[in-house]
C-alpha cells in the first residue's frame, strides 16, 4: 500500500534514529581498547554470568506468563467473587519498585529475618543445621521476585487482548458446547498470542537490564559484569561490548518467538458495544479463582506494602520531609510528559509500519525499542554522549563567532532525564500500541481509503478509536515505569533535582530503606492515581 506521503516515513525514520542514538554511542564505545578485560572475563566468570542471565531471563518470562495469562483471562472472561477489585488490584505490584520488593523479601526470608527466626524460636532449633529452609538468594529466588513485579505487563496486555477479542467468537464457541476451559484454550489464547508475546518480550528485556534485584539476591549476571568492567576495571569499552552481547541475547529471544508464531495472522472485528458475557464460575472453582488472584496480589503487593508501612511508622519522625510535595511534582510531571511522548512516538511508528510499502518499515520500531534492554546507567551514558556532543558543537559555533557560548543546553537538564526515559520506555508503548494495531484487519484500511479518507483522517476516525485500549495500556505502563525509574534520573539530573525514586534510593544505598519508606509509599500511591483512572477507561464501554 503506498498511501503515505513522504513526510510521514521521513519523520518515522528520524524518530527511530534519534531513539537509537544512545545505543549507537554505546556500540561506538565498544570498539575502543578494552585492555584485554573482556578476554580475561571469558576465562573466569563470564560463562557463569551468562548462564545466570539466561536462567533469570527465561524463568522470569515463563513465570510472568504462567501468572499473568490465567489471571488476565479469569478477570476478563469469568465472573467470581471480588473480580471487580482484582481488575485493578492485579496491576498494583507494578507500582512497587523492584528494589523495594527485593529489599523487603530478602529481609523477611533470610536466616536472620523474622520468618526463619520465628521458626527457630517455635521449634527450638539452634543452628542452620537443625532444619532446612530454602535459600532465597538464588537465581530462582531472584526470578520469582522479578516475576512478582513484572507479571502485570503480561496481565495488562493479555487482558486488553481478551477484551478486544470479538465476543462473537467466544459466544459461538459456547453455542457449540465449549466450556470455559475449552474456550480459553482454543479461542482466547491463540488470538491473544501476539499480545502475550509482546508482553513477555518486554518482561524479558526488563529482567535482562535489571541490576537492583539480582544484586540483592547475590546472583551475578551480565549486568553485574557490565558494572564490574566499567566501574571496577575502568573499561567502558569492555562494558559496552558486554552490553552489545546482551542485546544479541535479546534478539535471539525475539527471533525465536517470531519463528514460533511463523506467519499466523488473526484479525478480528471487535465492536465495543458488544457486552462481554462472562463465564459464571461456581462452587469450588469460583473460590479457587479468587484465592489464586489473592495470593498473587498479596505476594506482589500486599506483603511489601505492609512492610513499608511498618517501617514508615517505626521511623516516621526521621522520614517525614517537607519537600515530598516537590519531589512528587517532579516525578509526576516527568512521568506524564514521558508517557505522552512515548505514546505519540508509538502511534507514529506503528502507523508507519502498518501503511508503509517498504519491507524495511519493520525495522524502525525495532530500532526505537532497543533502549529498554540496556542497564539503566549504561543507557544514561549513551544519552549523555550525544547530548554533550550537541552542546559542545553549539558552543564551538559561538566561539567561532567570537561570542560567549551558552554552556550546557541539553545535558544536565530535565530534558536529559526525559530523553533518557523516552529512550528507555518507548519500547513499552510501541509494543502495546503495535499489538493493538495488528488486530485490525487490513480490509478496514482498504475500505476506508477507497471511500476517500486521507491516511491522517483514517488514523483519527478509524484506527485510534479501535486501538484506544492499547493506547491507554501504553500510557499507564510508561507512566508507572517512569515513576519508579532510578538509574537514568540519578545520573542525568540537574543540580538539586530529586524525584521520589532518587530520594528513596539514597537511603536504600546507605542500607536504610527504613528512612525512605515513607517516600516509597508516596511513589506507590502516586502510581495508583493513573492506574485507577486509566483502568476505568479500559473497563468502560463493555
Amino acid at each position, binding site marked *: 500500500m503506498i498511501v503515505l506521503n513522504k513526510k510521514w516515513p521521513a519523520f518515522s525514520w528520524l524518530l527511530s534514529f534519534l531513539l537509537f542514538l544512545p545505543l549507537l554511542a554505546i556500540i561506538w564505545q565498544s570498539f575502543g581498547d578494552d585492555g584485554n578485560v573482556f578476554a580475561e572475563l571469558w576465562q573466569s566468570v563470564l560463562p557463569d554470568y551468562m548462564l545466570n542471565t539466561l536462567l533469570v531471563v527465561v524463568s522470569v518470562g515463563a513465570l510472568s506468563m504462567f501468572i499473568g495469562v490465567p489471571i488476565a483471562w479469569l478477570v476478563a472472561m469469568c465472573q467470581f467473587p471480588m473480580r471487580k477489585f482484582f481488575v485493578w488490584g492485579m496491576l498494583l505490584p507494578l507500582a512497587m519498585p523492584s528494589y523495594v520488593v527485593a529489599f523487603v523479601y530478602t529481609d523477611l526470608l533470610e536466616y536472620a529475618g523474622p520468618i526463619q527466626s520465628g521458626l527457630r524460636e517455635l521449634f527450638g532449633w539452634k543452628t542452620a543445621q537443625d532444619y532446612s529452609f530454602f535459600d532465597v538468594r538464588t537465581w530462582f529466588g531472584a526470578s520469582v521476585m522479578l516475576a512478582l513485579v513484572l507479571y502485570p505487563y503480561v496481565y495488562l496486555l493479555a487482558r486488553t487482548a481478551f477484551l478486544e477479542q470479538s465476543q462473537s467468537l467466544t459466544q459461538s464457541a459456547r453455542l457449540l458446547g465449549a466450556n470455559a476451559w475449552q474456550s480459553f484454550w482454543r479461542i482466547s489464547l491463540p488470538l491473544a498470542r501476539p499480545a502475550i508475546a509482546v508482553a513477555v518480550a518486554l518482561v524479558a528485556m526488563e529482567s535482562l537490564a535489571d541490576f537492583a534485584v539480582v544484586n540483592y539476591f547475590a546472583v551475578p549476571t551480565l549486568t553485574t559484569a557490565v558494572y564490574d568492567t566499567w566501574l571496577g*576495571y575502568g573499561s567502558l569499552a569492555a562494558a559496552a561490548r558486554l552490553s552489545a552481547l546482551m542485546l544479541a541475547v535479546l534478539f535471539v529471544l525475539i527471533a525465536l518467538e517470531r519463528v514460533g508464531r511463523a506467519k499466523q495472522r488473526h484479525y478480528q472485528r471487535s465492536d465495543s458495544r458488544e457486552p462481554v458475557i462472562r463465564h459464571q464460575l461456581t462452587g469450588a472453582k469460583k473460590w479457587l479463582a479468587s484465592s489464586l488472584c489473592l495470593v498473587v496480589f498479596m505476594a506482589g503487593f500486599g506483603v511489601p506494602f505492609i512492610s513499608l508501612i511498618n517501617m514508615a511508622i517505626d521511623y516516621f519522625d526521621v522520614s517525614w520531609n517537607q519537600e515530598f510535595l516537590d519531589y512528587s511534582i517532579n516525578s509526576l510531571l516527568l512521568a506524564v510528559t514521558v508517557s505522552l511522548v512515548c505514546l505519540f512516538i508509538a502511534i507514529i511508528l506503528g502507523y508507519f509500519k502498518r501503511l508503509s510499502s517498504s519491507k524495511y518499515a519493520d525495522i524502525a520500531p525495532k530500532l526505537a525499542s532497543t533502549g529498554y534492554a540496556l542497564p539503566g546507567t549504561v543507557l544514561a*551514558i549513551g544519552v549523555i554522549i550525544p547530548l554533550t556532543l550537541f552542546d559542545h558543537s553549539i558552543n564551538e559555533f*559561538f566561539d567561532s563567532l567570537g561570542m560567549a557560548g551558552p554552556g550546557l543546553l541539553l545535558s544536565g537538564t530535565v530534558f536529559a532525564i526525559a530523553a533518557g526515559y523516552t529512550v528507555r520506555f518507548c519500547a513499552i508503548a510501541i509494543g502495546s500500541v503495535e499489538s493493538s494495531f495488528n488486530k485490525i484487519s487490513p480490509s478496514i484500511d482498504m475500505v476506508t481509503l477507497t471511500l476517500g479518507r486521507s491516511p491522517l483522517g483514517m488514523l483519527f476516525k478509524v484506527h485510534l478509536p479501535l486501538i484506544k485500549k492499547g493506547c491507554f495500556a501504553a500510557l499507564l505502563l510508561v507512566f508507572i515505569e517512569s515513576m519508579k525509574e532510578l538509574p537514568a534520573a540519578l545520573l542525568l539530573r540537574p543540580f538539586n533535582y530529586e524525584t521520589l525514586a532518587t530520594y528513596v534510593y539514597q537511603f536504600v544505598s546507605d542500607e536504610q530503606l527504613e528512612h525512605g519508606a515513607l517516600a516509597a509509599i508516596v511513589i506507590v500511591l502516586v502510581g495508583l492515581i493513573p492506574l485507577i483512572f486509566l483502568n476505568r477507561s479500559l473497563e468502560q464501554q463493555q
Partner: protein
Amino acid sequence: MKSMIAMAVGVMSVAGSFAAYAADEVNIYSYRQSFLIDPVVEKFEKDTGINVNVVFAKKGLAERLKREGKLTKADLVLTTDISRLMELKDKGLVAAVDSSVIESNVPANLRDPEDQWFALTTRVRNVYASKDRFGNKAISYEDLANPEFKGKICTRSGKHPYTVALVSSMIAHHGEAETKEWLTKVKENLARKPQGNDRGQIKAIAAGQCDVSLGNSYYFGKMVSDPKQKPAADNVHILFPNQDNRGAHINVSGMALTKYAPNKAAAIKLMEYLTGDLAQGIYAQVNMEYPVKVGVKKSDLVASWGDFKADNLAMSDIAKYRPTALKLLDQVKFDL
C-alpha cells in the same frame, strides 16, 4: 531564517551571561548520599552565603564530567572510596589545589602528593565478631583463611568497593599469588555465599549463622545508635585486625576540584571549610567516621572502641592494585 538564527543566538548569549553573573555558588558531583553531606553543607551556606548545589549518583559521575568537558558546571567531586579519587586524577578530570589551610588540616599521607585530591574522613575495615562464639580476641585478615573458621565467615559481595580495596591492600602486602591463595581459602570458609550489606553481616552473626565478618566501622556505629537495630549489634564485638603487625586496613572518603570548575574560588572555600574543625566535627558525630584533621574529637561511641593502629600503606597503592584485585576475585569465583 537568518533572522531566526540571529534571534536564537541573541537569546542564548543573554541566557549565558545571566548564568555567568549568578550569585556565588558551588556545584558538587557527589558519590556520597546527599543526606549525609546536608548537615555540613547547610552550615557552610549559612556561614558564607554561598549556595551549594548537589547531584548525587553512585555510578557514572566521572564519565558525565568527562563528557561535559570544559562546559561542566561541576566544581567539586565528593567520593566515598580512594579508587574513585584516583580515577578522577588518572583521567585528568581534576586540578591541583594549593591551599595552606587544607595542607595544614589534612595529613600528608591522606592527600595526593600532587594535591589533586584530599581525604575528608577515614573508615576502618573491621572484623565483626560474635561475643559468645569468638569474643574479644586479636585477629588478622590473614587469619580468616585458617581452617578453624570453616563455615564461620559471612561477607558481603567481593565486588563491593570496600572489599575490593581490602583485597588490593592484601596484594600490596603479600603479592598476587599469595593473595589468590588467601581468597580461595576464605571462600572455602564462608558460611554462605557472599550477600547482603554490612549491617546484614551483623544481623547474621547475631542470629548465629556465622561467627565473624568484615564490615566498615560506621555501619556498626549506626546500628548501635538505632534502638531497633541495637539488639543485633549488642551480640557483636567490633575488632581492629592486624594490631600486632601492619595495622587495620583503612579507606577514605574525599574530595577533588574539577579541572574546569567555573566557581573555583568558592569551591576552594568549601574545600577548606570541609577540612576545618566544624565540618570535621559534624562528620565525626553524625556519620561516625574518623575525622582526618588531627585534634578533632571522635564521637563518644567511636572513641569508646579505643585507639587503633592503621595500615599506613599509601592510598594510591590501594587504587593501583584494584584491577588485579578484581581479576583475582573473578578467578576464584568469590561471589559465585
